[in-house]
């Protein structure tokens, strides 16, 4: 049942991770690997596009928590975009909007990264 896919794009100093399907305790390690690879490659400007993310469990949310500290220490950020209402609700319940920048569109997050880079 739990079908999960990660697509990785690179563009203008920002790495975009697209999530698709169910992100739960079983599939969370895949996302961990993806983050770890970005960190190893010293790519700290990360956008996670959740357009096709159908479900996220607490274990899935934990993955973001595991890496945000390291990313921010390196003057980068993980920004979340394009969430469905249902997925947003899960993030929202836990209070993630207080900790992460969540945007409706990927473009907004990109612009945000660019303005910081310019500054």
């Amino acid at each position, binding site marked *: 049942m739990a079908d999960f896919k990660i697509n990785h794009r690179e563009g203008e100093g920002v790495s975009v991770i697209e999530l698709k399907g169910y992100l739960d305790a079983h599939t969370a390690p895949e996302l961990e690997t993806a983050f770890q690879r970005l960190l190893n490659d010293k790519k700290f400007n990360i956008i996670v596009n959740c357009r096709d993310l159908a479900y996220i469990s*607490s274990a899935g949310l*934990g993955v973001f*928590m595991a890496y945000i500290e390291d990313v921010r220490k390196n003057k980068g950020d993980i920004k979340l975009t394009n969430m469905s209402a249902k997925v947003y609700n899960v993030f929202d*319940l836990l209070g993630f909007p*207080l900790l992460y920048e969540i945007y409706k569109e990927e473009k907004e997050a990109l612009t945000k990264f660019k303005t910081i880079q310019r500054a």
Partner: protein
Amino acid sequence: MDRIESLIMPRVKNLLLITVPPVLFLVVFVYDIVRATVNLELLWLDLTRESFIIVAFVLVYLLIERSRSNIKRATTKDIGRLLIVCAVVLSFVGVLSAFGFADTTSQENEQPRYSAMGIFLSMILAVGVGIVSIRALLTIKDLILFKRKKGTKRNYTIYVILLLGSMVFMLPFLSMESALFGTLFFSLSVLAIVANSFRQSWIVYLSRKEKIYVIVYSAFLFIAFVLLNVLFFEKTFTNKALLAFSQPLHRFTQLNAIFGAVYFGMAFVSTLFHLPTAEVFERKQYEITSLHNLSRLVTQVFDFNDLVNTVTQMTLEVCGAKSAWLELITKDGDKPPLVEVVSARYITKDRIENISTGDLRDLIIESKKYLLIDEVSADRRTRHVKERKLLKGSLLSVPLLSQGNLIGMLYAIKEFEYGFDQDDIDVLTSFADHVTIAIENSKLIAKSIERERLEQEMMVAQAMQKRLLPQGLPTSESLDMVAVSESSQEVGGDYYDFVQLSKDKVGIVVGDVSGKGVSAAFYMAEVKGIFLSLSRMCSSPKDLLIRANETLIGSLEKKAFISLIYAILDSKDGTLHIARAGHCPVIYMSGEHTELVRPSGLGLGLANGEIFERSTEERLLTLHEGDVCILYTDGVTESRDQSGEEFGYDRLVAVAQRLRKNNANEIKNSILQEVRNHIGEPTYGDDMTLVVIKWLGKQGERP
């Protein structure tokens, strides 16, 4: 009775076999002495004498056959023993002939009359030669029937019949005409001898060493039997003595001596021809036994190190290599496969790393086929090997393939070039298949043992977790409260608890630890400890959450967090103070009004004190009689049906609303039932916890 009989009979038989022939020979001897002095010419007495001799020899035959019954396939040794018997008897015959010749030189007439000494000597001689014949016949019989083919047994039987036939015509009562038949049978017997002498298949199965022995033995046996034949054809003492003693016996020994000479002559020649192929055959046989030894692999699957060491040892054995080693491949996700040398024989790991590396290893891994390098010192594929000039010889690598996947490689090295032939490749390849199975089995067993151990640990964690949940519920006249927690796995991440803070106040907590399994159980234990200690110190739920977060943020791992609702119910005031740490909202129903109570708040362990404190709110609900509060974990709302659709808040709220007038237990059961119906199958995707609180009114105010 039968038992006694079966115990006694063989002994009686043995006794008969041993005692009767000497007695019979003694009778014959006495008769001969009498005849020599009295000159009896009675046919029936002669016939009785002959029959005594025949019976005696039949018994000797049986005795010898019986003594050989436990000999199995010890062909070379048997031939050796026959040679010893022959040598002893022949030298005996030689000595006797010397005596006998001296004794009979003066008596050259047709009917020799012997002295008692002469009669005794000739009888001893006849018996000796007779025993050799019988012994030779039995050995030859075993050799001929070593590998039975169509007609093997038949040809041998024909010879025996012809032999007996030619003996019958030598009986004393028969006339001269019958001698013609005797000659005919004799000639046919010789033909049968030649036909039988082609049955030499036992030679093929001898080892090289055994063949050399057989060549020597058969050469001597050939000479011995030729000598015997010479004795029979010439007018020697032996010939005369035998003819005088018993003509059928003379014929018997004569024919068998011919048989012996022809058969061992043939054996000598064919063994000589088989000698060059001995090595090949020997190796084939060795390979077969080695492959049989593969059963050893099966019994060693419980100890991986033993298993791999046996594998390399047997690799040396099956192809006669100088050194061998086994490499196994472990694959871990997307990482490049890790190749590890697990066992090596007569080669150092440094040297292995020197050889099995880089392009050569890649070549083997990619092709998944055997790789043969006939000349390591000259081959292009081994040019990376340092000091390869020192490493003269040939190398063979065979893959271990499990369902098309390469799980490892088996290497063998011979110290000379072109050391591996096609047979080696075939044998090692088939050996590799067995090794693969053994290794896979070993891994499976190790895995199942590990799984059992984990299951045991999970059982312990589960039992521990059950004890963390409250065993009873606080009771109050103004409260109707029920709680349930179901776990999808052995160990879940849900937690609920109650604590009686004072006479009127009850603290209620419902939480969910991220992740599952043993680590979740540990966090849960931690949360319980924190909750129990803080609940008595903190008067407000918000206060408790802030302090709980401070404690937890230091001890939780980065990716772990806890969502939690903490509420304090004051049954004197009829109030409920609620603070929420990232948890599912509380369903609050008062009359027609239904609300998802969701004061803002971060999950515990997500952020440090300042942000947490800033973001956490507290709600106060004033309860009216019949009001219902439902606390739950996301397992309820996130339970999915077959198509993946979640139970969701709408359904939960709908059920709650429909049943709000019922008691707490009915509400709980109905919600559980609805969730189960939604899922469709009696398994839960997640842990589920439900706490239903129904307010019955302030104490003393109720009717």
